[in-house]
Every structure is written in structure tokens, then in C-alpha cells.
């Protein structure tokens, strides 16, 4: 199996899907001439021409709306947001048009499109450019949300998202683009709504998504040295949620923490805690804890940024607490 970067895996998914179906096109700021702000669309302009790889002005609301219209008449747009921090400018089209169209047209128009780009903090990009907005999108019925953490999942989820007949938000990570991993060649599809057990363990479940999968695995390694076998469950898909996988893990370990890059308030973790206590209450031996970004705008100062982000120590500490080992 070839080893690709996350960036190359996304590029491969776009390339394969654009070859497979000529209704698929890519649109966004600097996706064509510049190969994408993060080079995810490298080589696609040469390959498919400027009708299918389209540079836009800096006008998120405009090109998102244009793409929803294109989807209504049968095309399959892929809209790149340079980062999801800028996507809020287009929220009206995502939330009010893409997410509602099937419902409000009485089933006449489905919206087979993808909104994609990086979410979460990189390094010292300050409060406006360091946000993890997964829960904003997962909040609304009518959109699907995925957050791949590995190159293989990036390829498999993006391909499935493009083929899906509903709007799908694919949330990548700036610090993930360079990570490497084995990626199956050709037809590799990861179904939407299916979690993946990245590490098996009996003692505690670390449930997470996206970039935090790697932090969870590091924490699991640390815990192993203390004789604790942590299970790492990567949701991959935030909506629809693989409730069965979550419950199976909690029923096995009887204790869980949710790790996410976003804020705690009404975050993805809050949803998971609600689901777990509703469905697996009698299996819990400890409250479900969350490890998240601090509930503040991301500081620019390096030392404060480090303190605000989730880290291995905090994950290990939360696991110890639900294990009553502190």
C-alpha cells in the first residue's frame, strides 16, 4: 500500500472523483492557478481545465450560493474554504440553503455537494484563525459532517462525501496535511457515519475525532506505561454519529472521555456525553469527562496558546480521574 501525505490523499480523492464523474467540479479561493492555499488541488487545473477547477474572488457567500445553485441542477460542486474560519461568511448559504433545500422543496431538490477545508488551530494564528468549528456544522440537521484524522480516512471520506447526494462538510486540519500514512489505491471508500477503533483497550475509552486522534494515541501510549489500556475510538463522522460504536466501547470499558480541539460549551463532546448517559447510564462507573480547548478565544502568545490547547498530560489526567487513579 503506498504511503501518502494527508494532502496527497485528498488530492488523489479529488482527482479520482473528477475523473469518475464529470459533474464534479472544484471551486474556491486560489484553488486553480495557485494549486490551493494548502496545495490540496495541485495539478487539477492542468488536468481538468478552468471550467472544472475554478478560482473565485474573496466572496465566500457568493461562491457558496453559486455552488448550491449548481447542485440544484445536477452538478456536484466541491467548495474549498481556505479555512473554516472564513466559512462563517458563507453560513447563510450552508445553513439556510444547502441544509434546508431538500426539506423545504418537499424533496424536489437534493444538494449533492461538499464544503471542505481545514478546521482547528495551527500555530500562533491568533483568535480569529484558530477555531475548531465542527460543532457549528454538526448542530444543524440537513448537513453531514466528517473530520478525517488520517490520510486513508481523508481519501475514503472525501470520496464518499463527493458521491453522497446530500451536502457534506469535510473538516480537515492544517497540521494534518503533512502527516503520512498508508492509503489504499483506487476505490477506497469510507462510509459516512462509521467510527473507527484506532486502538483497542479494556480500561478507558478515549473518544475523539480529526487531528486529536494522534493526541489520543500518544496519551494511550503513556497510559500503557502505567498499566492502563486505553481504547481510542475515532468518530470520523460527527453527523451521522456512529452511536453503536460509542456505546459498544463504553459498555466494554465503563468509562470514557471525549477529546476535541473545539471549545467545551455545546461542543461535540457535550453531545457525546448526552448520548452516553442516555444510552449507557448503567454501564458507567465514572462521569464522562471532556478534554477541550480552554473556553477562551485562542491566545496569540505561544505560551498561552500551548496552555489553551488540549495536550497529552490533560488527556492522561482525565483518564486517571475516570479510573479513580488520581
Amino acid at each position, binding site marked *: 500500500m503506498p504511503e501518502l501525505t494527508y494532502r496527497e490523499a485528498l488530492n488523489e480523492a479529488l482527482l479520482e472523483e473528477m475523473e469518475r464523474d464529470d459533474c464534479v467540479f472544484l471551486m474556491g479561493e486560489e484553488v486553480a492557478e495557485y494549486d490551493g492555499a494548502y496545495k490540496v488541488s495541485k495539478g487539477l487545473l492542468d488536468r481538468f481545465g478552468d471550467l472544472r477547477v475554478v478560482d473565485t474572488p474573496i466572496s465566500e457567500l457568493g461562491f457558496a450560493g453559486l455552488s448550491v445553485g449548481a447542485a440544484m441542477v445536477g452538478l456536484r460542486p466541491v467548495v474549498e474554504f481556505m479555512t473554516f474560519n472564513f466559512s462563517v461568511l458563507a453560513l447563510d448559504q450552508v445553513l439556510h440553503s444547502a441544509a434546508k433545500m431538500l426539506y423545504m422543496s418537499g424533496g424536489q431538490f437534493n444538494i449533492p455537494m461538499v464544503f471542505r477545508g481545514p478546521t482547528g488551530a495551527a500555530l500562533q494564528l491568533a483568535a480569529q484563525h484558530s477555531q475548531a468549528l465542527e460543532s457549528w456544522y454538526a448542530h444543524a440537521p440537513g448537513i453531514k459532517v466528517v473530520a478525517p484524522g488520517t490520510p486513508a480516512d481523508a481519501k475514503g471520506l472525501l470520496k464518499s462525501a463527493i458521491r453522497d447526494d446530500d451536502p457534506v462538510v469535510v473538516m480537515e486540519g492544517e497540521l494534518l496535511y503533512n502527516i503520512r500514512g498508508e492509503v489504499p489505491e483506487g476505490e477506497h471508500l469510507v462510509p459516512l457515519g462509521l467510527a473507527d477503533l484506532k486502538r483497542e483497550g479494556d480500561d478507558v475509552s478515549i473518544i475523539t475525532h480529526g487531528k486529536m486522534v494522534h493526541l489520543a494515541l500518544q496519551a494511550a501510549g503513556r497510559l500503557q506505561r502505567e498499566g492502563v489500556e486505553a481504547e481510542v475510538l475515532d468518530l470520523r463522522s460527527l453527523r451521522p454519529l456512529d452511536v453503536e460504536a460509542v456505546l459498544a466501547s463504553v459498555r466494554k470499558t465503563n468509562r470514557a472521555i471525549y477529546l476535541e480541539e473545539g471549545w467545551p460549551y455545546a461542543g461535540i463532546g457535550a453531545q457525546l456525553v448526552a448520548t452516553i448517559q442516555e444510552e449507557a447510564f*448503567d*454501564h458507567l462507573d465514572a462521569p464522562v469527562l471532556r478534554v477541550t480547548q480552554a473556553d477562551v478565544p485562542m491566545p496569540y502568545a505561544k505560551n498561552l496558546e500551548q496552555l489553551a490547547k488540549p495536550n497529552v498530560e490533560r488527556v492522561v489526567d482525565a483518564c486517571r480521574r475516570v479510573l479513580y487513579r488520581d
Partner: protein
Amino acid sequence: MATKVHMEALSPTMEEGQLVRWLKAEGDSIANGDIIAEIETDKATMELVARGEGILRKVLLGEGGTAPVGEVIAVIAGADEEIGELVGAAGDSPEPVADSPVSADGPKSARGPTTPGSPVASAPAEDPPTATVGEAAQVGAESEEAGLPDQGGERLKASPLARRLAEENGVDLRTVPGSGPGGRIVVRDVEAAKVGAGAAVPPATVGTTEAQPWHPGVPSEPGVDFEDLPLSQMRKTIAKRLVESLSPVPHFFLRITVDMTRTLAARKRVNALLEAQGDKVSINDFVLKSVAGALGRHPEANAQWMGDAVRRHYRVHLGVAVAVEDGLITPVIRDANQKGLAQISREIRELAGRGREKKLQPEEYTGSTFSVSNLGMFGIHEFTGVINPPEASILAVGAIEETPVAEDGQVVVRPLMKVTMSCDHRVIDGATGARFLQTLKEMLEEPAAILV
């Protein structure tokens, strides 16, 4: 004016104290500075001094009872002064304690057990069915501290899984001590109770064996499979400190073998000199003296992890682990590298003696920069010690053993001693520790080096 008597922090690490003995009784008059009680801290038995004057009006903590630092344990006031409010607030009771049935049992039961040393067994068992609200609240508060769920109708805290498991296994949660936060019963407690349920005696009565001395392998009553020994303040501190050490401190270990031929001979000569004064030194004194000397030459091994810095000490304060009845304590020989062999020997004997009697003052067992633990007298060949943070090292000393060794092609017998240094890798690297051990070995193999 009324004075509240608080449980005071009588050692630097004390979080709670056990009341050993009241030296004054209710009604006694108290002068400022009077010693009114003896408190067992995590390290020693200390005297509690009155910080006000008047009459000892109310004792709120019974002998054998435990209270966290800061809690009010008695009230000193004028003979006719109204203290109901003070006492009520301290006891967390809606009614002044003086009016509640609790006071009928005398001061000891107002808070803390009636039977010294058996806090778990006595309180719930003696809870009368006609408890008032005030009393129920008190018993509840106390049993939570002792780890037993309340039996007086207050809410019982258990994790959902623990409840389900208890129900499935017919375990009565009211008999299960909770080990989780705030006394929450968690699944491991129910599992322990399931094992315990095999015994003929319910867990509550097993608690009555606590006050008895520990005779390994001899159950105090037939049919008892185990007994839970209450944690002394010292045992709690040992447990807390050592877990704090081994988990976050990246330990590594260096071991070296020392030929003790010359140290044994030197000790003989030194003791012949000291005999006239009725004094003598031990091999361990030579070890301490040599460790201090070697640390003086290697301050990089006499260091501490401070979180944001490594502190290198130029004064050598040696902590010496001393076994005491229910644990250990490490009295400190200050500036050990400046002291002679006989002085080190006298100091450690004196400190160890008072350590065993729990008479050491806090400044006598804190502030060490390096620790030494010797189990040679128990015949231990070699072992590893757990670092006492923030120190970065501890030296574990084994027994001297006659050992055949090859020397110039011949097998000869030498008295060898193995020492093992546990190092905090954040502070001490392998070569740093090794250089220190090399110097130590040289000093013990040629005791004349002490003079240099």
C-alpha cells in the same frame, strides 16, 4: 472573647491530624500558650498550644478522631459566654450541639469516634434509630469521611455501574465503603465487597478488628479472610508521596559494587580509638560520610528538579531513611560534608531514636538534598529506592557479603557491597550519576580519601 481552637498545620505536609489525647478537659481553665492536646501529624506527634485564654468550654473532636487542617476542634471562652453559635457552626449542625442528643454521649461523640482507632465501626453501628436531623447530618458527614456510606437515610453515592453490579450480585451498597470522590461507591468497591461477602462476618464488623495489632497470617476471628488496617497519618503520607514520585519522575538506576575491605579495617581502627570515649561508628556512618564527601565534589548529583529549573545545592543535607514502627522517616544531617565521622554517627543515632519515638520537629526531617536508604542490616543484597521529590536521587545500600572474586587469575574472597542510585533523569544523566558513584566507590575502597 471566645477563641476557636483549630486543627493546625503542625508539619509542612500535614493535611489532616488525628487527636491523640486531650491534655485539658472541658471546664479546665486555659492560659494562652498552654499545651492543650497532642496531635498525630503525618510525621510525628505534636503538641497543640492554646492561642487564647478562658475556660475550655467545648471539645468538638474526640480522642482518636481526625480533622482536616483548619477545622474547629474546640472552643475556649469565658465561663458564661454564649458559644452556641460557634459550636453550632463548627459542627455544621442546624441546632447548637449542646441541645442535640449527641452531647448526651459526652464530648467524644460530638465529632470523631467513641472508640479510639475504630472510626469506621463505631459511628454507624451506634446510630440510634431516633436520630434527629442534626445528628443524621453529622453522622452522614462523618461516615463520608470514613469512606462508609451513610446509613441514616442520607443519599448514598454510587456509580451507575456499581449500583447495577451490586443489584445483580445481591450486595447491599449500604455496607460497602466507597473509595471514589466524596465516598462514591465505584465498581472496584462492589467487587471487593463481593469477595468479602464470602466471609462469615459482614464488612462492618471486620472494622472492629482495626484497633488490634497486626499479626500477619493470624486472623483475629475465625472465618475472617482479611482485615482493613486503618491508615495512619504517616502511611497516608508515604502512599501519597511515593505515588507522586514514581509516576511523574523518570527514574533510572545505576548500580556499582564496592570492595569494603579497607572500610571494614578502617572502622575497626576508628572504633578502637573511640572505645575510650564509649563511642563507636557503623559501616553506614562511613557510607554517609563518603556520600557526603562525594556529593561535595559532584554538586551536579546534589540537585533538585524545580519544574522550571534544576537547583544545584552546594550544601549537602543528607536524608537518612529510618524505619519506625508503622512506616519510615528521613531525618536530615545538615551540612554532612562538613561533619566528621563521629559527629555524623552521633547525630543520626540521636535523630533516629527520636524519630522512632515520633518526637522529631519538622525542621529535622525536611530540607534534605539527597537521601540514603540502607537495608544491609536486613540482609538485602541490593535494592532500588523511590526518589523523594523534589530530590533527584536516592542511594540504596545493600549488605556487605563475602564474595569470591577473580583477582590476578586467583579466586579470592572479598567483602563486597552493592549500592544502587535511583536518578531523576530530568536532573541527572547516566554519566553524571556514574561519576558520582565512581567517586563514592573510590572513597569507600580507600577510606583515607575522607581525609583529603
